[in-house]
């Protein structure tokens, strides 16, 4: 149990009333899928793990990542990455600058630039560094968002309905890409979705809420 992401008797309360209760463990390289109707508090659980729970909520239990208790830490020290349905690329930065924002600090400008070019090549977007994110297709944006998050070297990955904005053909492709990269880096992945296909493709344990 020391490895991976451990939700140890986690219980989230809203204004004193119980919202979600979950007790589970996600091993490195595997995907845990959380399903349930909207409003059941799936996204709230993700906020709790990354540390941006609004003040109206309270959290009991423990969240451990590689044995380290996350709850006392501010969001920036938790090393938990998150991807949303929208790529949320910053419109004021080029594609390369978006990736540079994710890339962990350090290295000369040339080194950083080559790391970014390599990351783009890894998802088949060679030469896209100077492009305006607005000119990218939905699938391209999703790939840039994935690489931006991975460049920040997270130790776990959360997915908040990450594929529901994409059309069917693209969805399968992006889904495979995200899972492959997470597996290659041995990241524990926690996915929230209401799409059964997502859950099937993930192939891991499925928890149903609500």
């Amino acid at each position, binding site marked *: 149990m020391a490895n991976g992401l451990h939700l140890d008797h986690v219980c989230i309360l809203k204004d004193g009333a119980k919202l979600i209760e979950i007790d589970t463990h996600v091993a490195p390289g595997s995907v845990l899928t959380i399903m349930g109707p909207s409003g059941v508090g799936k996204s709230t659980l993700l906020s709790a793990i990354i540390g941006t729970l609004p003040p109206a909520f309270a959290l009991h239990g423990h969240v451990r990542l590689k044995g380290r208790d996350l709850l006392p830490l501010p969001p920036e020290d938790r090393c938990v990455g998150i991807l949303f349905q929208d790529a949320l690329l910053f419109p004021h930065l080029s594609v390369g600058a978006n990736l540079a924002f994710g890339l*962990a600090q350090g290295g000369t400008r040339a080194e950083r630039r080559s790391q970014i070019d390599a990351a783009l090549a890894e998802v088949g977007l060679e030469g896209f560094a100077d492009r305006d994110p607005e000119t990218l297709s939905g699938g391209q944006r999703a790939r840039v968002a994935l690489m931006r998050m991975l460049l*920040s070297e997270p130790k776990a990955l959360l997915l908040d309905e990450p594929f529901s904005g994409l059309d069917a053909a693209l969805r399968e492709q992006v889904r495979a890409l995200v899972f492959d990269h997470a597996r290659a880096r041995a990241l524990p992945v926690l996915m929230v979705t209401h799409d059964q296909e997502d859950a099937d493709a993930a192939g891991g344990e499925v928890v149903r809420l609500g």
Partner: protein
Amino acid sequence: MIRFPRLPLFPLLTVLFLLGPLVAGLWGTLLPAFGHFPAGGHTGPSLDPFRALWEWPGLSDASRLSLVTGIVSALLSLAITALILAGWTGTRGFRVLERLLSPFLSVPHAAAAFGLAFLIAPSGWIARLFSPWLTGWERPPDLLILNDPWGLSLIAGMVVKEVPFLLLMSIAALGQIDGRRRMALSQSMGYGRIKAWMVAIFPALYAHIRLPVLVVLTWAMSVVDVAVILGPSTPPTLSVQIVRWMSDPDIGFRLLAAAAALWQLVLVVAGVGLWFLGEHLIARLACRLIQTGRRGRSDTPLRVAGFALGTTVSLSLLLGFLGLIIWSFAGFWSFPDLLPDQFTFRSWMRHRTGSLDALGETALIAGVSVIIGMILTIGCLETEERYGLRMTQRGMWLIYLPLILPQTAFLPGLQTLLLNLGLGMGRLPVILAHLVFVLPYLRLSLEGPWSAWDRRQATVAKALGATPNQILWRVRLPMLLAPLLTATAVGVAVSVGQYLPTLLAGGGRVETLTTEAVALASGGDRRAIGVFGLMQTAAAMLPFALALALPALVWRNRKGLLNG
């Protein structure tokens, strides 16, 4: 029932009321600036007024003061606002700050400036608090804190008034930005709160509040009332000097004033140009800094600084307001004492007639200009609805134009034009001048609620056989009672606070609470300032209390309309 005109009558009238005085004022400034002023016996064109302006020894100091105090205070206000938002949005502390600051939005500039003056003057509360045990002062020290030659207290006064404005404008704009997920994303990549906010949210927010920021900038470069109270006096800022020349009994000084007004316009345009350049440079610099990937994690000192600055701003406003109250009731009050020896009604009795007359005048002008403004604004919104028109970016600039254009650039011209045309100055021109500033704020505060109204209600009413007029009067307006009242309160507060339009369009003969209060600044009678400042604040704030209370009363049995 009023028949709704087929022509876009309301938009045309609104543009006329909005731009008419602006264009007339600029024209009226241009003519005398080039020596043409028949009412004063001058016929142009000539460059004499400009020659006289260049020869005025205070010109470079006054120009520098206007430019520097304006840009510095706008920059500080924006920075403090951003720091508070970056460090604290979504927290409990932020809600406390928001509640502390929002009531002060409607406080007139002059009253806020007087309040600050009572706080920081050598004989003010701060000096009293630390005397004599720390400072050793047995009497007020001979320090030039107020009206200091660098304009520091002027900058402080403007910052204290503009931070609440920018903060509340930002909070309104943040609702349209998906800030929560952007923050979560940046923080999950390891960024500290402030840096995450600055990168992920500030650029989007700034695009929304750019016009209000420009209003703050040009206002700060050309403000008169706050500069009279807190600014330096030899020389004063250029705008204050223009008003001095306009008030000179020698009518010939009007030419000099007009030339200076054009110069003020040039300065403001230059200031805005500098600001745009700064925006560009900062954006480029920020893009390069972002790409280094520095996480900015140890931002606790910055967060604390942001909270401290926000608290300082709200405390200055709050204590300044208290200062006005206490001075208005103060009997004998010797220096290091924190409170007066006794409280009396003497000041209130002494100024009873004067302040009540001024209150009546203030209420009349505010009432008429807000009623005209509301009719025009609702007429415009309804016309746009029926013709399917939408507010464009250009329309937005048009609405902001009177707020961005420096008042000292066109209001002096309005007065000289009235003189040239042989028209009297007085209450009617004052009302029209107020309308120029009331209209934009009415539109800005009604815009959101008007378009957020659920149009299916109109569809239902139409299906029941209601005419468009019936829908307007019997469905939409009653449902929008609360925002309509809030807009009315905003309009009244704007009108109450106007100094320069009242002074210039009224020819000095229309005496409102604001003109009376500002006129007291040079005399230093703090008890009188307390009375007038407090009356002025009450006149601006009471309508807000009514706007909150009235819907609760009218709709006490209609729960669906109470929390909307």
